[in-house]
């Protein structure tokens, strides 16, 4: 297995780990980290697969940079919402979600 392919395989493992984490982890802060793992795994697959020829391909590099910024934005929003929810939980004892009518 070439080293580039190894990156892609590791990326696949990280992605899988992230997916399992989003389902299994109950703590919402850790779940946000699991989403970031999913993203990082996908980025590694993208870059790893694209440079199988040996020479690096700038197009997936740029796409990953774009993806990282998008992931930062999503993470920041998630953290802000989580923080807000946490503060409201502090002020009232139990958070009840409106599930249905």
């Amino acid at each position, binding site marked *: 297995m070439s080293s580039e*392919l190894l990156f*892609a395989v590791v990326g696949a493992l990280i992605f899988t780990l992230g997916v*399992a984490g989003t389902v299994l982890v109950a703590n919402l802060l850790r779940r946000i980290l699991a989403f970031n793992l999913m993203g990082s795994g996908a980025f590694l697959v993208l870059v790893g697969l694209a440079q199988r020829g040996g020479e690096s391909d*700038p197009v997936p590099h740029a*796409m990953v940079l*774009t993806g990282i910024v998008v992931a930062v934005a999503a993470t*920041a929003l998630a953290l802000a919402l989580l923080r807000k929810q946490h*503060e409201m939980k502090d002020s009232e004892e139990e958070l009840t979600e409106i599930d249905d009518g």
Partner: protein
Amino acid sequence: MKRAIVIAAALVFGGLLINAIVDLPSSPVDLRIAVADNMANSGVSHPVTAVLLNFRGYDTLLEIAVLLLALIGLMAAGPMLPPPPNQPADALLQKLARIATPPVIVVGGYLLWAGAFRPGGAFQAGAVLAAAMVLLHLSGLLSAWNAQLLPLARRVILVGGFVLFLCISVALLAAGSLLQYPPHQAGLLILLIESGLTLSLAAILAGLFLFLSRDNGGAP
């Protein structure tokens, strides 16, 4: 039980995924050739910057919109609890932060300029400047931002880079397409866009931190 099912499903999925990756034949399209062929007309000499700001500059334009809207979303979630009582800032920490800030700004400027020919560019520069602002905040020299009372100047800085990018993109529509740089002016326009983006990205990234901070760092 649920745990076992999820882990089993993840193993199957991971196995399929790795199998598919290892089996993959080489791709029929090779964009490295297209990128290399068009580098001369891109206005920059670093291929990743060429893709990011020119060939796929439209992605980057939309990506700044994502960052900006996440910041607005964060503000829309409403005011956080008021900060806890002031804590006296550490004098040594403040001194170090004051010493560190000027070189950090120089590094940011260098990264911006270097992006044209080597790894670097507006994002890296903006991130470094934002880190300096966070450092100043944590050492008590820069107060947290209040999302509900945002002065006009700060709003202008937050959106300025994006607006400049958008205006240049639209102005180039006159040449036929959105973001269609004339080859001999591409370098200058990209530097202009990246300079604007550096300032705005620094403000946005710092804002993601400063709007959420409950620590007013001892500042009045």
